[in-house]
């Protein structure tokens, strides 16, 4: 993610698009069960605006070179969470990477630890199973006539983890998850954190109980891959540590 310091780019091209296209070679990990049991690599070389998003470079390949190339995408600006991929070895959303930052050659693979179904599409069900396991909804049946009161500080306490878009970039960057898919994974913990530290919620203990099981937070070895991978800038490892601490000291 670009920081203000990196944006001292004063070129006009950043605003209006490049005057010359650049050459980009995409080396893509392919798999299609109707073609072969084994995955393979394909390379495509295209001409593309260096200020264009990588997901649009993938579209250019699909639309004009190989219609069978398959990937998920929707909003194309980092909000819907569809297009998490391994891009040059790191998890990222293809719509948040500009071509100029990976040209002349980029390697694209499906995210790891989930079964590949076709090309860059993986089976998301185990990921959503982990999410559903942590009671990912507010538990509080108290009647209120208007809104509940929550101070700005109480609201700030869980702000970071409300940003999650369930793209799975964090969970599928985690070496513990690669080795053992029963590990609930960073994204589920992030979504538990979002409620555990919400002053309005009444079920933090149930969630902490779920996360203290052997498939839960104590599998985390704080490699920080998840924090590096998060396209929303969530401090995932910090959230996991806060949940661990809440379990150890029985305190929210």
């Amino acid at each position, binding site marked *: 993610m670009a920081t203000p310091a990196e944006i001292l780019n004063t070129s006009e091209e950043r605003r209006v698009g490049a005057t010359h296209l650049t050459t980009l070679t995409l080396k893509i990990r392919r798999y299609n069960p109707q073609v072969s049991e084994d995955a393979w690599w394909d390379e495509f070389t295209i001409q593309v605006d260096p200020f264009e998003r990588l997901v649009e470079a993938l579209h250019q390949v699909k639309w004009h070179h190989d*219609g069978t190339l398959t990937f998920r995408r929707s909003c194309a600006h980092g909000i819907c969470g569809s297009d998490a991929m391994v891009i040059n070895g790191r998890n990222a959303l293809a719509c948040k990477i500009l071509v100029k930052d990976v040209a002349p050659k980029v390697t694209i693979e499906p995210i790891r630890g989930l079964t590949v179904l076709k090309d860059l599409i993986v089976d998301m069900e185990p990921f959503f199973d982990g999410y559903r396991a942590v009671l990912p909804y507010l538990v509080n049946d108290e009647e209120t006539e208007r*809104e509940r009161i929550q101070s700005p500080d109480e609201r700030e306490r869980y702000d970071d983890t409300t940003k999650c878009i369930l793209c799975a970039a964090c969970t599928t960057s985690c070496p513990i998850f690669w080795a053992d898919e029963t590990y609930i994974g960073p994204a589920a913990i992030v979504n538990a954190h979002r409620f555990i530290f919400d002053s309005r919620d009444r079920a933090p203990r149930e969630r902490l109980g779920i996360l203290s099981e052997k498939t839960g937070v104590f599998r985390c070895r704080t490699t920080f891959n998840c924090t590096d991978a998060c396209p929303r800038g969530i401090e995932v490892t910090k959230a996991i540590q806060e949940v661990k601490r809440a379990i150890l000291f029985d305190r929210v």
Partner: protein
Amino acid sequence: MTVTHTYDAVIVGAGGAGLRAAIEASGAVKTAVISKLYPTRSHTGAAQGGVCAALGNVEEDHPEWHAFDTVKGGDYLVDQPAAQLLTEEAIASIYELERWGLPFNRTPDGLIDQRRFGGHTANHGERPVKRACYAADRTGHMILQTLYQQCVKRDVRFFNEFYCLDLLLTDDGHAAGVVAYELATGELHVFRSKSVLFATGGYGRMFRVSSNAHALTGDGPSVVFRRGIPLEDMEFFQFHPTGLYRLGVLLSEGARGEGAILRNKDGERFMERYAPTIKDLAPRDVVSRSIYQEIREGRGLGPKGDYLHLDLTHLDPKVLEEKLPDITEFARVYLQVEPTREPVPIQPTAHYAMGGIPTDVHGRVVTGSDETPVPGLYAAGECACVSVHGANRLGTNSLLDIVVFGRRGGDDMARHSAETELPDLPPDATARTLGMLDGILTRETGDNVADIRSELQDSMFDLAFVVRTEESLAKMGEILGALRDRYDRIAIGDKGSVYNTDLMEAVEVGFLLDCAAALVAAAEARDESRGAHYREDHPLRDDANWLKHSLAYLQDDGSIRLDTKPVKMGPYIPMERKY
């Protein structure tokens, strides 16, 4: 092979409207939600600035003021009883979202905070009012997440990555179910049901510069259109003033609500000339037209002179960080512009369809000038036209629309389903769908789908965007005819059955062509200017002839027949729209 499922209620689309309907219906009857995406990928999640309700948490406000603004904002094409209902039910809807955990920003006293938004005013236009409830600039994301969380809690049955391709009707015109294509396997599924609700969102992908997701291809409207149901007010499409230049990515009106200013190449705050009272916070149609005018008169920026600036540099960087973090990041990531120090290049971007599938205030689909209900058929959200947005939607009213009319539609479809026997399926339920897919899949050579789509997008952007004329629309009509001919000869590269997104995109382009044809036909007929529909050759509103909704019907020969129906009036008498 076809799989048949049986439900009481089937909801197509899992954005805000579909999820809200599902929460309501699933508590009462056996309900399924079909979506071509995973629910959390839906475009509700991209909405930014807020959702309005006259809570009066920050300053005096009343639902009646909100209703007036909505009617005036819609240039008096709004059905006034529906707008009154929307703005009255807004308050309970916001409290409900809060009770379900939506993390609204808070006032120092811990109430839901509110901010200014375009066209929302105190006391019938006196001054901007703080009415938009918000969660930073991620309000849509929070609504989508909160509604999905509530569906998880209620164990709602989802069919994810199922693409609805046809509506099934009985001989006497009752909804009987839908046909869906399972992306993972290529299998067709028939969902028998007592009621069907479409909540498939908009069709903004027919324009080159668009804030809309790739998925927004008018699926629901086109499916019902092909079954003889009309589309209402299709000529009214909103162009949001502040899309990120070239990309169209939305920069929330909430930015101007927090004090950002639009400037031309001379640095002038030009909105002072066009809307002296509320300036940069004028409704979107007014601001987009003003931008167009500035560009045309040579006050745009860049080598082509085709963008303007959104200036946030005078705002406290803390405001950007806390209240507008996402749009700040979009400017940094996509244009490499640092909004705390330099203005952001913007241009109008295709954003929202005011028109769509005609419904009443219970979400029931109604056809004809006399509004005859189609039993068991419902629509809600952007794909529907109630009409609460009239000729131009106010910012934040779309998020309000999905929760209010999603709930109403879900409630009424549950009532209907509980009172109704399961209709018989028509014979050969999948015949039409199979015919459509086989044509696309079997042709070995033919026209390229992407070429047709980009020509559609480029020409719609040039000829049917912020400013239209009879000539531009006639030309667009001819182009659409030629594109339709080419579309009938398309061939695709992927012939497989596993995640054939090549096939899905081909179908989507067909849907877009239908919606574009309805839009252009209705826009050509309406020789007046109203709200977002601006005809340069007829620049004035013409209430004597055009204070009415349009209805477009697809006929068997592929042509479009136009009809009209009256606007439901109320306390607000149409007057000149000034801001």
